């Protein structure tokens, strides 16, 4: 589903990614772990199509197509979803309106009719329960005045509503207490399916206890320095990252 080949990328002439190789197939959950500054968010943003990086070499293939020239919105319409590490506050834009607009953009792209108000409310109420948010959030502006945990749950809510095929979750666990963490993991597990793939980007092992990955990769200084099964996460929890430094 996603194949990254020798990807190198820089921001303002500073090299961040130095040859990433990654192959994610349908039904798989990959965790990418690493310290702050290792390039995790850059990788996530590049998959989603953020354009303030310069890709110096390498390619990203999604569903076997090179997506270098594809806009972020077209990537999203074709099934790529990014849960932001820092979800953006959008004052004055009502959450319900935003969710409906996003869902309808997808439906229009599939040449389906726009969802009617009643069906949309039914859908949204069902998904709100999954992430333990109450309906008052819908009346507020997008992420405006939301706590850290509420913002992250709102990201998962969007994932559940938009039903992407590839979800990249960038530190969706950071700053959460244990209950919120379990809610997020529940949302991820709800979403998980044979025909979908997930990339969990995280600093810590704790989310992976509840949302168990198939593969774990360690990103360090812009390169994947070690890959393994879910047990690698436990090893990192125990030993930290230093032992992997060359």
């Amino acid at each position: 589903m996603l194949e990254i080949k020798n990807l190198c990328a820089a921001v303002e002439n500073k090299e961040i990614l130095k040859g990433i190789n990654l192959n994610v197939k349908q039904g798989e959950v990959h965790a990418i772990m690493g310290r702050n500054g290792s390039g995790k968010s850059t990788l996530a943003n590049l998959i989603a199509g953020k354009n303030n990086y310069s890709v110096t070499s390498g390619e990203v293939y999604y569903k076997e197509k090179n997506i270098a020239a594809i806009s972020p919105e077209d990537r999203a319409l074709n099934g790529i979803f990014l849960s932001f590490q820092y979800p953006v506050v959008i004052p004055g834009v009502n959450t319900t309106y935003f969710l409906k607009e996003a869902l309808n953009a997808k439906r229009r792209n599939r040449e389906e009719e726009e969802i009617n108000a009643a069906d949309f409310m039914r859908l949204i109420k069902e998904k709100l329960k999954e992430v333990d948010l109450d309906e008052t959030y819908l009346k507020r502006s997008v992420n405006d005045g939301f706590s850290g945990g509420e913002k992250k749950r709102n990201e998962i809510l969007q994932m559940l509503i938009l039903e992407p095929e590839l979800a990249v979750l960038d530190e969706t666990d950071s700053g959460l207490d244990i209950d919120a963490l379990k809610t997020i993991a529940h949302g991820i597990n709800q979403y998980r399916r044979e025909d979908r793939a997930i990339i969990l980007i995280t600093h810590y092992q704790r989310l992976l206890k509840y949302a168990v990955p198939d593969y774990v990769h360690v990103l360090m200084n812009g390169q994947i320095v070690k890959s393994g099964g879910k047990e690698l996460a436990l090893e990192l929890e125990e030993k930290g990252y230093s032992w992997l430094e060359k």
Partner: protein
Amino acid sequence: MNYLQRQFHALLDHCLDERKEIRSLRKTAFDRFNQLGFPTKKWEEWQFTDFSEIRKNEYRLAWGKDLPKIPDKIPGLIPDTYSIIIINGHYQPQLTKLPTGVSVKSHEDFSQIDGDEYSLNGNQNPFLALNTALMNSEISLIVEPDSIIEKPIQIIHLTTALSDQFMNHPRLVFQIGRNSQATLVEHYIGETKIPYFVNPVTQVSIDENASLNYIRILEEDIFGCHTATTNYILKNDARLNTTSFSSGAKLFRHDIKLDFAGDGGEAVFNGLCLTEDQQHHDQHVIVDHQQNFCQSRQLFKYILAEKSSGVFNGKVVVRKNTKQTDADQSNRNLLLSPSALMNANPQLEILSDDVKCSHGSSTGELDDDAIFYLQTRGIDSETAKSLLIHGFANEIIEKVKPISIQDYIHNQFTDWLS
């Protein structure tokens, strides 16, 4: 002799039957205007606005023959409102619809109006002086005490079907009686391709425990220049809620002054300016806390596109020995083009200790991170930008009441955006 002098003398000849107090007021005001002259870049409070367009254009005063055929459908008329219609400076009494408890006086009974609202009180604003000298369109609207006026009263100033460049100097006096509640909409619309100049002065007084919801909509044609002066006086426990929505006029300057003349007053200002092309919008606001326990809130937003420019100059004054003042002033500006320009200058002048005051101003472009966020949800970048601009404006628009007026403003905003 410049065009204004010629017009002034023509006006005096035309209005020979006017009361002599009014004639002498006009003369004093015109002398004041001549002393002051048009503002120049050297005047601190006027430095960012160029008035040469008004100075050079030879506008003439609107006369009776300038009244065109009354349109079947008055543009801008909002459903379910009481209305007062003024076309090219001419009040149309046959179109007036008002509820009981509200009365209106126009130019015809102008001689009965007492002069207090008309005195210059040493004011140094040349456009106020010019209006007083040349006022040719007067409306005085009085809401009786203890009246609850449910529906809004909309006052439309329509400029349409001009044959040559002309000007109007409307004078509006609004008095809201004790314990009364009303919504007024002062609405300027232009539909012409000929340059014109509208220079209104609005004097609003809100008596004890009365409440006014006041909406000002500026949709002058792009060929129009509009300079306005609005003065508010709030008595004890009076409440004022204002919204201004300004999208029209080539040049717009508005001087707003609010005096808390009694204790316990509350005033809210929400303003949204939309400019494009080479439009220029300049608003100066002074809120004068002269009494105790008064609260004022200001939120002025500008959205500036293309080569347009804006000025916001707001001042909150808290006088010596006043108690428990609560004042907040905020100015937020969104630049949609690298050629758009904003000058903002929020100021506080606090001479009392017993205050809670805050102010701030920010000017920025659309947030790239927010655009990217929306794009990752499948929303294309143009729609994303439009959503963000909408969101920015919504903070003002969604507060407008009643809903019929909010809908009108919202529709006009959406039209502007597309």
